[in-house]
C-alpha cells in the first residue's frame, strides 16, 4: 500500500497524474511535463518532496558521529549551512546521497532519499552508538515543498520577512512563510536558484496554496516528478538508483570530492576507498545525434561491442535533443565513436562534459 504525502488532496484537486515512487503516491505531472520543465527554467515551479526523509542527529558529539558515519567532514560545518555528502558501506558502496544541514551546534538534519531513509536511519543509529549523540528518524514530522526557478526569490519574498538575499546556496534558516513556521533552505535539484521549505505536515496545504497564489502572476506552475527528473538530468545531478548504487563508490560516479580523507579519525568505508583502483568506467554525458532517446539500462556500444550502460536518459527541452548519463569504459571513451543500442539499432552519440545545462548567474 502506497503512502500519501500531506498534499495528496491538493494534487488530486489539480488533476495530477499520480505515480508510485519508492512506495509513495507522488504527482508525476499535472499537465504537460514539458511546460512544467520550462516553467522552472524561465519562471518558477512548485514541487512536493514530502516523501524525502529527515533524520536528526543531536547531542554534544553529533558532529563527530557524522564524521564517522558519513564520508564528509560535517563537524566543521557552520550552523546554518548545509553540505552534500554520502553514506557508504564498509566496502565503499554508496548507500545514499544526502544533504546535511547543521541547524544548531548540536542539531544536524540529514535529508535522505525516499527509497533509502529507513536504511540510512538504521545505519546512522548503529554507527552513532559509540558517541554521545542521538539519532531520530523524524521524516513523518516534515512536509517538504520546493520552489525552484529564477522567480523563486521574488515569489517567496512576498510571503516572508526572512533575509532571502543574505541566504547563500547550501544554507538554511528558520523563518515564517505566509504565517507558517518553516526552515528555509537554499537548495534544490533542478540546476536553478530556489528554495526548499521544511514545514509541519499540517501546514503543507496552506503553504502550498499561499505559494501558488503569490506565484500566479510570476509564472509559477506545480511540477511533478517527471519534470524534476529531466531538470536534474540536464543539470548533471545523479539520481540514487540510476547513477548511484551500492555497487558503486563515490569515485566511480565522479563524485570522489565528497570523500574527505583528511578529516580526523576513521570513517566507515575509509579503508576500502583509500585502497581503491582507478575506476575503469567513467560517468559521462551523452547527446544523441538523432531523435530517438537513450534510456535507463540501454547498452552503450562501440563497433558492435558493449562498452557501457545508460543510467538516465530523456529528451532535453533546453537542448532540443535527447541526452543521457552513462557509465562507459575509459578505453572506449579514449577511442570515441560511441553508439547507444536503442532497441536494436545503433544510434550515434557524442560525449559531452556534465552538466548539460548551467544557468547564467
Amino acid at each position, binding site marked *: 500500500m502506497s503512502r500519501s504525502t500531506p498534499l495528496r488532496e491538493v494534487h488530486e484537486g489539480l488533476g495530477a*497524474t499520480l505515480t508510485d515512487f519508492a512506495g509513495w503516491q507522488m504527482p*508525476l*505531472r499535472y499537465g*504537460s*511535463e*514539458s511546460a512544467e520543465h520550462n516553467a522552472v527554467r524561465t519562471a518558477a515551479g512548485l514541487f512536493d518532496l514530502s516523501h524525502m526523509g529527515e533524520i536528526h542527529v543531536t547531542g554534544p558529539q553529533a558532529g563527530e558521529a557524522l564524521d564517522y558515519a558519513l564520508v564528509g567532514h560535517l563537524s566543521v560545518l557552520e550552523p546554518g549551512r548545509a553540505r552534500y555528502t554520502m553514506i557508504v558501506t564498509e566496502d565503499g558502496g554508496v548507500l545514499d546521497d544526502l544533504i546535511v544541514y547543521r541547524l544548531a551546534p548540536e542539531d544536524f538534519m540529514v535529508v535522505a532519499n525516499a527509497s533509502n531513509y529507513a536504511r540510512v536511519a538504521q545505519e546512522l543509529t548503529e554507527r552513532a552508538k559509540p558517541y554521545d549523540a542521538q539519532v531520530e528518524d523524524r521524516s513523518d514530522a516534515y512536509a517538504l515543498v520546493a520552489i525552484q526557478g529564477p522567480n523563486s526569490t521574488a515569489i517567496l519574498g512576498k510571503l516572508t520577512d526572512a533575509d532571502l538575499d543574505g541566504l547563500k546556496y547550501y544554507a538554511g534558516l528558520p523563518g515564517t512563510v505566509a504565517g507558517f513556521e518553516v526552515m528555509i533552505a537554499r537548495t534544490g535539484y533542478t540546476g536553478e536558484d530556489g528554495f526548499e521549505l521544511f514545514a509541519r505536515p499540517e501546514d503543507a496545504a496552506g503553504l502550498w496554496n499561499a505559494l501558488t497564489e503569490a506565484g500566479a502572476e510570476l509564472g509559477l506552475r506545480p511540477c511533478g516528478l*517527471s519534470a524534476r*527528473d*529531466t531538470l536534474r538530468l540536464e543539470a548533471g545531478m545523479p539520481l540514487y538508483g540510476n547513477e548511484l548504487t551500492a555497487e558503486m563508490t563515490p569515485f566511480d560516479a565522479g563524485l570522489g570530492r565528497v570523500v574527505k580523507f583528511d578529516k580526523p579519525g576513521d570513517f566507515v568505508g575509509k579503508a576500502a576507498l583509500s585502497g581503491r583502483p582507478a575506476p575503469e568506467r567513467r560517468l559521462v554525458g551523452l547527446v544523441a545525434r538523432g*531523435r*530517438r*532517446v537513450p*534510456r535507463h539500462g540501454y547498452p552503450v556500444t562501440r563497433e558492435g561491442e558493449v562498452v557501457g550502460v545508460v543510467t538516465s536518459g*530523456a*529528451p532535453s527541452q533546453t537542448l532540443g535533443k535527447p541526452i543521457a548519463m552513462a557509465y562507459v569504459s575509459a578505453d572506449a571513451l579514449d577511442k570515441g565513436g560511441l553508439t547507444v543500442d536503442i*532497441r536494436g539499432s545503433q544510434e550515434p552519440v557524442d560525449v559531452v562534459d556534465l552538466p548539460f545545462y548551467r544557468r547564467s548567474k
Partner: protein
Amino acid sequence: MSSIPEELSYTKEHEWIAGVEDGLTVTVGVTAFAAEQLGDVVFVQVPEVGSTVEAGDAVGEVESTKSVSDIYAPIGGEIVETNQAVVDDPSLVNSDPYGEGWLFRVRIEGEPEELLSAAEYATLTSGES
C-alpha cells in the same frame, strides 16, 4: 476520463482505426488514453510509405519524456500514407489524437486484428487508469 469517439474502432494496444467499414483504406492513430498515459510526445516514427505490413507488426514508435511505445499495424496491407505533420510536431498526438495526430493509412489486404468497439475500449481503459 479521456474521450473515446463512438464511430472509431480500437485495439488493445490503445490505437484507434477509422474507415474499417468501407473496407478499403483505414487511418490509424493512438487513443487519447494512450496519449495521456505517455505524457508529452516528443518523437514519432511512422512506417515507410509503400511497405507491406502484417496485422500485429511493430511498425513505428511513439516516444515521450518518460517512455517509449511501439506502434502496431492493426491490420495487414500496404502503407499508403503517413502523417508528416505529426513527425514534424509530435505534440499533435497529445493535442489532437483523433484528428491532426493521426499516424498512417493502410490499404487493407487482410483481416484486422480483433478490434474493439468504443464501449469495449472504454471498459478496457477503465480498468487501467
